[in-house]
């Protein structure tokens, strides 16, 4: 059932356990994400998907287990250091800097590459102009790629939701991450938009040569784009394999549809 861990996985989740008071949200979950792999993380509500996501991105501090990225443990790493290791993320329901323009949002994604401080920027020293020019070039590339040129200088708060999602992708991608963590990217999108999103995710992998961890409710999207799917239920991993394997896995079917006698006819 379990695909053998790839040699030299990009990211390795190893026995992560997370408790909130007496409630066990994650009970020792392990899985790997390989280089250039699109890995879907699924599970019914309350299965621990989002908790897992927050453990990986450093927003929750797990007590037991470890998560490593290219062999480096992420445990206890400050959140603002994740991006320089090559871990980019988006947020459930979009967390953009609403008062800022599309372009400025993306430029914040490149912030970590800059080294100039308060004084240098107040005086606009040559180093700051070099940094600004480089960041600007990167932002323009992504704006073109994501077809946001006409919106580049508009405040992001006024854009339709689907476009905001693209801006958020751009903001994560400008840093040149090795892995992109997507937290329910299909939430709030209509059918057509979900199809486009699936295509976009595959294109991003090809274009940026990165791995993607996709935490998603939308089953058909996950099954369509993922190379591998990890299924959680009540904080435990119940399946790990190709989309086909996972879809046929009796445990997964039971988790989603209930036991045979109460399962709706499908």
């Amino acid at each position, binding site marked *: 059932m379990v695909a053998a861990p790839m040699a030299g996985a990009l990211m390795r989740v190893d026995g992560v356990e997370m408790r909130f008071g007496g409630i066990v949200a994650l009970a020792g979950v392990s899985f790997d994400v390989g280089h250039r792999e699109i890995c879907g993380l699924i599970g019914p509500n309350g299965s621990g998907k989002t908790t897992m996501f927050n453990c990986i991105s450093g927003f929750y501090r797990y007590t037991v287990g470890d998560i490593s990225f290219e062999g480096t443990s992420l445990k206890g790493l400050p959140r*603002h*250091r994740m991006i320089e290791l090559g871990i980019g993320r988006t947020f459930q329901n979009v967390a*953009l800097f609403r*008062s800022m323009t599309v372009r*400025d949002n993306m*430029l914040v994604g490149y912030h970590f590459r800059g080294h100039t401080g308060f004084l240098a920027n107040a*005086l606009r020293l040559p180093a700051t102009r070099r940094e600004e020019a480089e960041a600007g070039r990167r932002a323009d590339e992504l704006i073109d790629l994501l077809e946001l040129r006409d919106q580049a200088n508009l405040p992001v708060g006024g854009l339709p939701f689907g476009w905001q999602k693209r801006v958020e992708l751009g903001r994560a991608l400008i840093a040149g991450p090795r892995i992109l963590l997507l937290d329910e990217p299909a939430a709030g999108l209509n059918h057509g938009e979900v199809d486009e999103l699936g295509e976009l995710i595959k294109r991003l992998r090809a274009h940026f040569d990165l791995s993607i961890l996709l935490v998603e409710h939308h089953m058909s999207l996950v099954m369509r784009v993922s190379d591998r799917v990890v299924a959680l239920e009540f904080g435990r991993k119940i399946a790990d394999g190709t989309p086909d394997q996972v879809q046929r896995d009796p445990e997964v079917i039971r988790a989603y549809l209930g036991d045979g006698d109460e399962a709706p006819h499908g």
Partner: protein
Amino acid sequence: MPNIPPQFGIFLFIVAAAVLPLVFASGYQTFQLTMVVIYALSVLGKNLVTGFGGQVSLGQGAFYAVGAYTAAVLMDQWDVPYWATLPIAAITSGLVGLMLGLPALRLGGLYLALVTFALAISVPQLLKYKAFEGWTGGVQGIVVSKPDAPFNLPISSDSWIYLFSLAVGVVFFLAITNLVNSRIGRALKAIRDQPLAAEAMGVELARYKTLTFGVGAMVTGIGGALSAIAVGFVSPDSFTIALSLTLFVGMVVGGASSISGAIYGALFIQFIPNIAEEISKAIPGVVYGVILIAVMFFAPGGLAGVIANQLRRLRAARVVGTGRAPS
């Protein structure tokens, strides 16, 4: 008319601000304008912390007081020339700001407002405190002599102090404008809009919040130091909580996340109380309150937003006009 770059407008404004008062303003009016420059700087420091940085500070007057007393003590005790007191006042007020930036990391929103409020309340009492009386002059305060114009310039002391303050003000307004439009400014606004996302983008919240508090305090402190030079006198009762609230009003009226808003806010807090008193000697506070409410009603986002809109409309009208009848 060819396209005029916006920098040219700013340049004209600075020249006009420097020259016109020398020609037209009386000594007292020049002093009032000096106070506008000083308030503008002080509000600018507050805008940086609260408007751009999103951290509520009700105690900005404390940094102003630190700047003012630093300048006054240096001139009084060690005969430091007035211009040399500014960098030292910048350092002392900046350091006090940094120290206050530390609790600012742990306290958000209303709690931070309370802490800074407490600071503003304690400052006048600290200035009166016996142990510091040798330096601060206690309740008496410190009287310093106003500097004369250098190089035998044929202008009054008031005019010279005005030009000096204006020059300092221009330097800091340009510097803070640069800062706000740089990667640092973007990081600040990012923290204000979405702290978690900012962190995920690699912005170190602690560092930026603390430094912003320090820089904002420094800019306000320089305003305070200039006030000591311009007024020629500091006393504890000039730096009560009322001063902090005045700066707060200036920030809100002008537009908190705006550079030019600091200037409009400064004009408001300098001149509106006088105008209110002219309207009614008996209840100037009420008149002031009514004007304040009226401004908030007509310019809910601050005067800067309204004025920017009007300028844009004017410019658009001119473009249309010249298109029809080329001159």
